[in-house]
Every structure is written in structure tokens, then in C-alpha cells.
């Protein structure tokens, strides 16, 4: 698909005098894994919420899956998946009931739910957990389940806000396997993270500092540009210039 998954020009969000997101511009190609980096309080989540149709931009332009973020939020919502910082499945529902609920509200039929649900459970190896309450699962499993549920309706783009926060390294690795599998199916991945090893897995990354995007390229090019040996060094070089205090 040639069409860009995300086109963003001069997107800005103000809260009173505070400019949370300051005039950011970037494009994301369909099927790309796009890393959205930045220190705490740099404005990543605010930017992501605007792209998901959860928050009105103050100014600028953006199209997600070809739909305008000012006027077509509901159309955007039909075409994206979203996994927030907070765990968002229902803890008092079972694994299967959560799959049924979230798949169902995206319009999957009973037959599709069964097929997709079984496929998802096999992929995650959660056959024995199907009837367990989601609240009783370990965090790593919850996050993998939440991701799989977020893409159950085959969205064009999935937004992941620090999906691997607090997850052990082995599970993080498995989580990224899921991300690659989804990207192979053509789903665009838009992911924020604080782990620089994860940043290396991305096709391209942007780094936000004080609401602006200060760097945007492939990990290799960025390292070259900043004469750094690792993404860690690139991040430090940029984040040190931040004026805003982290939250």
C-alpha cells in the first residue's frame, strides 16, 4: 500500500499557556514500525492521543489512515487499535470474554470472533487460561493479551503507549515478536518506549524533546548523525537539552 498511514503537519496542542506538543510534523508509511521516543513529559502521550482521536489538536493538520483528526475521529477509531499506558482490559472478565467484547465492538461476527479468538489464544499459548479472569494473569501475559486484542480487528495502524513498561526482558522479547508478526501482516506500528534496545527494533524513530521532534530517522542514521555507538547515547544527547522538568 502506497498510502501513508499517518501524515502529520505542524500538529500542536496547548493546555492554557503550556504547549504540550509544539508544531510536530512527520509521516509514517503503511507497515512501518515507528518508534516514538522522548523523556517523561516530552509530549508523546498527548501527541498519540491526538492521532487516536481522543483529543482535539489546537492547530496543525494530521490524517490517520487517511482520515482527518479534527473531523473524522470516529472513522479513525474504526481503523486503528490502541493500547494505553494503563492496562485496559476488564479484569473481572475472562480472557475469552474480553476478546469477545473488544472484537465484537469492532464489528467482528460470532464466526470471526471464534476464528480470531482461537488463533490469538494459540499464538499466545494461553489455551489453559481462556476461562481465567484477566485480573489473575501475570503482567507480561496481560500486556501480550492486550496487544493481541488491540489488533484483533486487523486495524491499519496500532498505537502502543509504553506497552512493555514493567515487563521482564524475556516477555519483552516475546512482545516484540508479536509486534513483528503484526507488522508482517501489514499493520503499521506506532510505539512509544523508554527501552533503547526496543528502539533499535524500529524501522524509524523520532525523539521528542519539550514538545518538539528533535530527531527523526532510522536508528542507524541517527547513531551516525550523533556520532554515537548506541541509541542510549543518542537519547542522552538529545534529552539533556530538555528545559522541561520530567513529571
Amino acid at each position: 500500500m502506497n498510502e501513508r498511514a499517518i501524515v502529520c503537519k505542524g500538529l500542536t496542542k496547548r493546555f492554557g499557556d503550556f504547549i504540550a506538543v509544539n508544531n510536530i510534523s512527520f509521516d509514517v508509511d503503511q507497515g512501518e514500525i515507528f518508534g516514538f521516543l522522548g523523556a517523561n513529559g516530552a509530549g508523546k502521550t498527548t501527541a498519540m492521543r491526538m492521532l487516536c482521536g481522543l483529543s482535539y489538536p489546537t492547530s496543525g493538520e494530521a490524517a490517520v489512515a487517511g482520515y482527518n483528526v479534527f473531523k473524522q475521529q470516529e472513522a479513525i477509531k474504526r481503523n486503528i487499535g490502541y493500547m494505553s499506558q494503563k492496562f485496559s482490559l476488564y479484569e473481572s472478565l475472562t480472557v475469552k470474554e474480553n476478546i469477545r467484547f473488544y472484537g465484537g465492538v469492532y464489528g467482528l461476527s460470532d464466526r470471526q470472533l471464534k476464528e480470531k479468538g482461537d488463533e490469538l489464544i494459540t499464538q499466545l499459548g494461553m489455551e489453559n487460561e481462556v476461562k481465567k479472569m484477566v485480573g489473575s494473569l501475570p503482567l507480561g501475559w496481560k500486556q501480550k493479551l492486550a496487544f493481541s486484542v488491540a489488533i484483533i480487528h486487523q486495524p491499519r495502524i496500532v498505537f502502543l503507549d509504553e506497552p512493555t513498561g514493567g515487563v521482564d526482558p524475556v516477555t519483552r522479547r516475546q512482545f516484540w515478536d508479536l509486534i513483528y508478526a503484526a507488522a508482517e501482516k501489514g499493520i503499521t506500528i506506532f510505539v512509544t518506549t523508554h527501552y533503547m534496545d526496543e528502539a533499535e527494533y524500529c524501522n524509524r524513530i523520532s525523539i521528542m524533546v519539550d514538545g518538539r521532534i528533535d530527531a527523526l530517522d532510522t536508528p542507524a542514521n541517527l547513531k551516525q548523525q550523533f556520532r554515537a555507538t548506541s541509541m542510549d547515547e543518542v537519547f542522552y544527547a538529545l534529552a539533556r537539552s530538555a528545559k522541561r522538568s520530567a513529571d
Partner: protein
Amino acid sequence: MRTLRLLLEKEFRQIFRDKGLLPVIFILPLIQLLIMPLAANFDVKNINLAVVDRDHSTYTQQLVSKIASSGYFHITGYHNDYTPALRQIEREKADIIMEVPAHFEQDLVKENKAFIYLAADAINGTKAGLGSAYLTSILADYNNEVRLKWLPAQPAAAGTVDLRFSNWFNPYMNYRLFMVPGILVLLVTMVCGFIAALNIVKEKEIGTIEQINVTPVKKWQFIMGKMIPFWVIGMVDFTLGLLLARLVYGIIPVGNLALLYMFLAVYLVALLGFGLLISTYSDNQLQAMFVAFFFIMIFMLMSGLFVSVDNMPGWAKVIAMLTPVTHFVEVVRMIVLKGSKFSDIQFQLLVEVMFAVVLNGWAILNYRKTS
């Protein structure tokens, strides 16, 4: 429709899996219905009366024994002087002092008139007011007896007006008959008002509402998905309460049950709309709880449940009319006790429909998927 069905499935599962919430929804209200009508009794009995008798005559004796036999008064002591009787009031041993002056009998026989002095402890206003009223009526009665005894030969003088009245719809002035339907309203209001107020905000706290907001679920579907389960709970609670009222208090609605339920159905929509509206405005459950508590207190005190709306000053009546609870309390009493028909309650029904439309419309408007 499918989305709504999925939302309902989810809500019902969550409610029935919440082991802490279930007893609060179904058991506590019934326990309250068993206890509150027994306590919320406005009949004034056991009024403590201190008698100051300066006359020590047969007439005084007759008067006091008449008062004692009424069943409302408890004679706490006889005193020769006012001061010790006042001490009794100060020590909260007596509620009312009745002072019979010296030469009471003599004055009454000779001069055809005599005075009795009553002093009531008005700290408990109800007891003072009702107690004095009872005493006055006993004294009037006594007065009549004396007149008849003394003036048998002058029938023309016995031209007193004798008032007789009967109490319609509640002939024995059974307080429970009046209170139980009202308390039933209170319970349904508390349970449904609070769970609705706490619900959406709970999803805000957990963060699941953000996930809902990023799905194609429509605003009205989400609100309906919240509304319907609580509506069903309200209907079930009311039914259980009505059954209990019948079994324990022997209260059987005189009027049409279908009419009662029709009104309940509309009332619940209005009430839940109110709860959900609070929920959409609040950021956390604590906030929602306090706001809901504030309003439900006003509803309870201003709805005519405990204090008649007709007795309120004009501005208070306006507030009372602006709460959905007032109209429901009125209608429940009308249908249960009087057997009122549709034509009698259509005004209240119209008002309730307006509440339902405005509150829910407001809640849907204020719930924003994009902020």
C-alpha cells in the same frame, strides 16, 4: 444493536462478579426497609409531664388522672412550686410543665373561669408542639365536661361545636402505611443513584474508558449499556421491597400495579441519568461519591418524605419540585394508599419524563469520546 448487547453482557457480568457490590444492591436495602419504618415514627408518646399543683383540689385530681389516662403522658412528679418543676425540665426529666394555680377549683366554680399555665421545653420542637396540642385538647375536653356538669339546667349555653373527623385512606393513622412506601422510594433512589454515579467514573479511574473511547462504540450505546443494567436492578429492588412491605407490614397497593411500575420505569431513567451525569463530571470515585451524597441528601430531606412539601416556604417548594424524587414519593403514596388513577398522576409523570430526557441528554452530551 450488537454493540449494545455486548456492552450489556459485559456490565451484567461485572456486576454479578462483584462480590462486594451484590449485597449492597440487594440485601442492605431490604434490611433497611425492615428497620427504618420502625424507627421513623413521628407519633409522640411518653411525653413527660411535671405537674405544679397549688390547688390540691378534687378538680385538679380529676384533670391529672384524665391526662394520665390518655396514654400520651407520663406524669413525672407533683410539685408545690414552679421552680422544682423547672429544674426537672433543665435536667431533661420533664418535657412540659402544667401549672394549676391556687384557688383553681374555687375560681372555676364561683367565677366560671380559671387559668392553667403550660410551659413546654421547645428544644425538641416536635414533642413540645404536639404535646402542648394534645394537652390543650384534653383540657378543652375537660372544660366541656365541667360545663355540662355545672350547667345542666341551661341547655342554651351548651352551644359548643363538636368536631368529628375521619382519616381517609389511612383510617387508623398508621404511620407505617405512610412511611413504608416512602422509604421504599428512598432505598431505590440511594442504591441506583449511587451505583450509577460511581460507575462511569470507575472506568475512568481504571483506564478502561480510554479503551472504549478509542473504539467505534457510540456515546448513546455506552450510556445505554450503563443505564439498562441499573434500571433492571432498580426494578428488582423495588419489587423485592414491595413484597417485603406486603409480608411484613401488610401493605398492599390499592391502586394499579402496572401504573406504579410505569411510573417507576420512567423515574429510574431520570434518576440513573442523574447518577451518570455526576459520573461524567467527576474525575474519581471519591469525588462522585461526595457529589452524589450531597444531592441525595437534598433529595431525601426536600422530597416530602419526612417533611410535607406543602409546609415548606416558597423557595424550598421550588427546590423540592426540581428534584425527581419528590414527584415519585408523591405518586407512590397516591397509588399505594389512595389508588390514584392515570389521570391523577399524569402531571407528575410528565415532569418525570422531562427529568429523564434532560438529565440523560445532558449526560450523553457531557460524556466526550474526544476531549
